[in-house]
């Protein structure tokens, strides 16, 4: 495989889209439209349209929020952490993962704004100097959230763009017409001169070094939205690692879900090989096991603590009216990944794809269980245990979020190299005169 081959194969993915692509895009936009219409209704009539019921004051919206933030995690993990670990196999997949990250955060970021009662005052959460002289409450986990998500979005975005620059330059030098102009601007004069590479590779290293703790922090902060509260089932020190693992788990699953079709549609079999998928599978297995372990720990501690409220909460979770949600979660996240112990499964694209879908579902339900069920069965006052059912408004917004995410993702893969050109080249043996000194 030569450099030239790599460049051209990847550049080919930017060719004129097929009808299938446009159909997908149309689908995504339709979902988005549904979401927007639902949102307009919520704004006009109030959140009552959603299924909320005392005391379940957080529900599907926050579930989706956590779900998308979770998805956002594998991207930076693969691009930054594995970069620091110098693991070569990441090069072929990290671009997709990173794009996914950015768009997932974009999606997640919307939910806190949608779910608040007076959406038009969302900016009150931002510390801006105002005539009233009021500031937000930095003790509130929600403000931490705002900072964490904001930072994460900014950093992962610049990280993605940085990685893109040399590749954009590469496609610029191949492209023609308006695309050339676009790439000429977006590649901000990249030539690949030694000076550029020198600062670039250094900076990239530091970005990776900064992004790594960030990844771990963001979902910890999100988890503290719950861990900082005293709701039994939320109030656990375990939450930060538990959520981070869960996030990466769902993220990796989502990467697989996205890579499989991309690889198939763009004929990237030679760049994205079975090996890559197997490694993703392993990652999935690892994080999956951590998550399952967390489930066990949660329940054990609830029993071991001897606190009747904790016990009641987890009993309600497993055998209360929401048992189906809990068991969906346990099966999808706890049992399915065990299949990945087998190499046969890990190396079978179809199997991986199916599992990844189920993991995504399972992880959505995990958040549903943690948020909705914990609130519904909060045992402090037995008097208030709720009956909660989502309504069309909940589903509408959720559909919209998927539309929003996939719209951006589809637009991205058609306009920018979905696989890193320069980094793939890096792991190839460089061209040398004669076959001498291939030893390297």
């Amino acid at each position, binding site marked *: 495989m030569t450099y030239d081959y790599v460049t051209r194969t990847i550049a080919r993915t930017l060719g004129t889209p097929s009808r299938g692509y446009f159909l997908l895009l149309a689908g995504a936009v339709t979902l988005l439209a549904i979401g927007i219409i639902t949102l307009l209704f919520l704004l006009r*009539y109030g959140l009552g349209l959603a299924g909320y019921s*005392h*005391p379940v*004051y*957080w529900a599907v919206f926050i579930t989706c929020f956590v779900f998308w933030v979770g998805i956002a995690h594998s991207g930076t993990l693969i691009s930054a952490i594995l970069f620091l670990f110098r693991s070569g196999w990441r090069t072929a997949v990290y671009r997709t993962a990173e794009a996914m990250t950015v768009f997932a955060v974009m999606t997640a970021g919307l939910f806190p704004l949608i779910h608040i009662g007076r959406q038009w005052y969302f900016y009150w959460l931002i510390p801006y100097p105002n005539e009233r002289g*009021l500031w937000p409450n930095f003790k509130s986990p*929600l403000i931490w959230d705002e900072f964490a998500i904001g930072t994460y979005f900014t950093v992962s975005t610049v990280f993605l763009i940085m990685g893109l620059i040399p590749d954009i330059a590469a496609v610029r030098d191949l492209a023609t017409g308006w695309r050339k102009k676009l790439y000429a601007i977006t590649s901000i004069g990249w030539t690949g001169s030694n000076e550029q590479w020198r600062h670039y590779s250094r900076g990239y290293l530091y970005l990776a070094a900064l992004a790594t703790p960030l990844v771990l922090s963001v979902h910890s902060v999100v988890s503290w939205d719950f861990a*900082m509260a005293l709701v039994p089932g939320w109030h656990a020190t375990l939450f930060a690692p538990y959520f981070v693992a869960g996030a990466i788990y769902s993220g990796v699953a989502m990467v697989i879900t996205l890579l499989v079709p991309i690889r198939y549609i763009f004929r990237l079999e030679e760049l994205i090989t079975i090996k890559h998928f197997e490694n993703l599978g392993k990652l999935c297995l690892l994080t999956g096991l951590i998550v399952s372990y967390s489930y066990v720990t949660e329940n054990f501690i609830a029993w071991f603590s001897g606190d009747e409220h904790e016990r*009641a909460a987890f009993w309600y979770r497993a055998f209360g009216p929401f048992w189906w949600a809990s068991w969906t979660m346990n099966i999808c996240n706890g049992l399915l990944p065990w299949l990945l112990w087998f190499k046969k499964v890990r190396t079978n694209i179809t199997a991986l794809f199916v599992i990844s879908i189920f993991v995504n579902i399972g992880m959505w339900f995990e958040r549903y269980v943690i948020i909705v069920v914990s609130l519904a069965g909060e045992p*402090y006052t037995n008097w208030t245990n709720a009956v909660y059912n989502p309504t069309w408004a909940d589903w509408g917004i959720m559909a919209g979020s998927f539309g929003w995410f996939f719209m951006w993702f589809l637009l991205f893969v058609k306009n920018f190299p979905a696989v890193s050109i320069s980094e793939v080249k890096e792991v190839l043996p460089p061209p040398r005169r004669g076959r001498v000194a291939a030893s390297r």
Partner: protein
Amino acid sequence: MTDAINRRRFLKVLGVTGAGAATLSACGIGPEPTERLIPYLVQPEDQVPGIATYYATTCRECAAGCGVRVRVREGRAVKLEGNPDSPINRGRLCARGQAALQGLYNPDRIPHPMIRNARGVLEDIDWDGAIQRLTAKVRESQGKGIVFLTGAEQSTFGDLIDEWLKQIGGRRVSYEPFGFEALRAGNRMTFGTTAVPTYDFANAKYILSFGADFLDTWLSPVEFQNGFTRAHAFDAGRPASMAKFVYVGPRLSVTGMNADEWIGARPGTEGMLALALAQVIVTQHLARVPADASRLSSLLAGYAPRAVATAIGIEESVIVRLAKEFASSGGGLAVAGGMATQGPNGAEIVAAVNILNYAVGAVGTFVKFGAELAIGSTNTFGDIATLIADMAAGKVGLLFVHGTNPAYTAPGAFPQALGKVAYKVSFASFMDETTAACDLILPDHHALEQWGDSRPRAGVTALQQPVVQPVFDTRHAGDVILKLSGKAGTFQDYLQAKWKTKHAANFDQYWMESLAKGGIYAEAPARAVRLAPTAARINPAAPAVSTAQEQDVVVFPHPILHDGRGANQPWLQELPDPVSKISWHSWVEVHPDTAARWGLATGDFLLLKSAFGAQKFPAWITPSVRPDVLAVPTGQGHTAYGRYAKDRSANAFELLGAQANGYGGRNFTVRATATKTGEHRKLATAEGSPRELGMGTTEVLALSRAKALHPGDHPFHYEETPEYAKEAVAWWAERQHEKASHGNYKGEHPRWGLAIDLAKCTGCSACVTACYAENNLATVGEELMQRRREMAWLRLERYWRTDAHGTVQGAVIEPMLCQQCGSAPCEPVCPVFAAYHTPDGLNGQVYNRCVGTRYCSNNCPYKVRFFNWYNYAERGGEFEAFPEPLSMLLNPDVTVREKGVMEKCTFCVQRIRGAQHQARIENRAVKDGDIVTACQQTCPSDAIVFGDLNDRNSRVYELAGNPRGYHVLAGLNTKPAITYLARVVDQETPRNG
């Protein structure tokens, strides 16, 4: 109605000042000030804008005649409070009284007189026209039988009617659906008088109720509840003791819930039980039995416990024990009424209970004849039956209806008979079932708009004065009658003239004083009664045992909607029934065993078919009713009356017959078949888990243990920190406090707190409605109630209380409201400081800062924060809570919340600030007792006390240190400002659920 009309009427109602207008338009918390300011033409000398004026008048929601003080702001009545001068309610008020305002400003009131035209359709008519027509009608129907049907009307207005009827030759019939025929008949049998005595619960030492629901619907609930808690509460003014309360009846009512012991005797056998007790007492000489009681020995002989135990359905030993307890208490009081006395043998049961009272010498001490209750003077159901017969026979040519709605309470028979009446005139304020069938409608003023008086009991005359301008184009029925009878002057003049006859000497001063006091309150001389010879001949025989397919169905008065008159007041509809916690709908109570036998779940519909009618009710599975009894409340199922009442659930009166029984009463206990219809309904209930499950929210003490407590004991104290850590923790807490005491928090501040005595709280729910009234709480309607979206800042959690065997003996009611925690979980999680801690220790909730993340509610272990899912104040909105003119009773001192904001109990912060303003103006400090929260003010049993916990001399400080005191979920270290005092039960091993 167009806005213009609204505005004009609105201006008519208030000579508006800016404030008045501003608050009305201030729907939502956005800045929406009035654009126009309309000054008074002439400033009423007793009204200052921004300052509330209180007028004393009388509550006419039921016949008890409680005195009220109406809080008037800028010409609008915004709140009712009990009149402390009134000996009846002693400044307290019940939920129904609180809701009188919603009758006054009800959007469904008949705005102007109406007449049925040739096409049989009601059309508008002006007053003069209407009165002309009526005068003519009266003239032509003289001799054809004129009947004036009123409610319990023991008043000058009643006298006026009688006078006029004498003049035109007609008769008056007064009708109370839940009359007290049994009581009067029973009294006649035993004491030869039909008078209804007053009962002195306050001084009783042992209270035994045979179905008498004196806390919710029987005679004078507020008065009795006040008295009852004085007797029954633990260490209420007396050395640690409490009067035991035993309830005998087929189901637990609000009254039953408060019993220390529940005897679920078979319905109809209460009399036998009473006589059995008397028998034991007399034969074993347990009390100083009056000499003439010997006459009864032959009667009692037949009621030895062994003989009747099986028939009654309880063990003989229990009967003997009860008799011993009752007699040895040295102050036993037995009352009979309600469900027990609404069967065919009701009168005998009353007589039997009278005998029991007589045996222990309660008659004359606790049962006071002389101070008779006016309610006893209404006509019997027998008279109603005859009236119906006369009407059906066409013997009534002209019928006036005022203050009663027989077409609803006597369905079937009455409406049919009504059709036969030539001309029907109604004075009703609402288009209720009866009025809808009338030919001429002359809407009367609401009680709060009119002059009047009432004599609820001998010695007491309560005055009524108009406190607001009439909201609609209505007229005082008295004025109308005066015009008809060709007399000059208004009813006010008539009233004063009548009063003058009683007290001529410097009348004006007397009049003004009476107005200020709300009436004249004198003690009627006691009247001794002796046992009548008939007493020995009574026979309270029990009816046959109900068979499998035929059930005993008990129709009982709804404690909130009563006989249905409250059904169009959204506050009352939304207020969960104190026992079932079901709102906006009716239900049938089914015992779990029965339900299991029939495969019934809560919400499944049962079709009850009696000899007289059939109705469907959703089942409520509850252990608080006998397995062989079904119980149905009245109140719902209106076919007219108004938007809130119409076509809602089923009318239980349909199941009842219109025939009077032996003693001229009505049978409210009927035999009926019950069949599952297969339909199901999600009931709008506020009930969560009916059992407290030992999660430590409520505490119950056996009387013996409570007595053993000494000052300084803390049986419920939750030890948060181990000994070795105490010092460090204290030091740390101190440092934390310093770090937290900047700016506004520097220096000394009060810490507002509340003490709630569960031993006093009866669960009557008056506080809840008072809270709705004071704090502009929105009513959300049935659909949203089903989704648990009620806005009640204060809810009453009812947990069944069982004995050692797990059988329900009553309930513990826990008022749950914002605990105003010292270190509140809700505060730190709010991103915008909308929930924060005020210097005076409240959990402030700044509506206009709230963005609605709802995190505070998630983090509140008490779950007492409520979210505005919709804009309940939106004009014409789907969930509008204050349709014109209901919005006029909005409290101007409280923000009307917008959609998307969180709200919760504020400890009536507007009252706190008001008191502080006043104190500042008067250059003094706020005194203990200056601030009274709405719930505390109305509580008939004085269970709630508000004050400053930092003030060593305040009442609340003292109560907070009470050994029975505990904090809910103290283990969470939230440091609540509310101290609950444990419920005390006169029982061996009580368990709270």
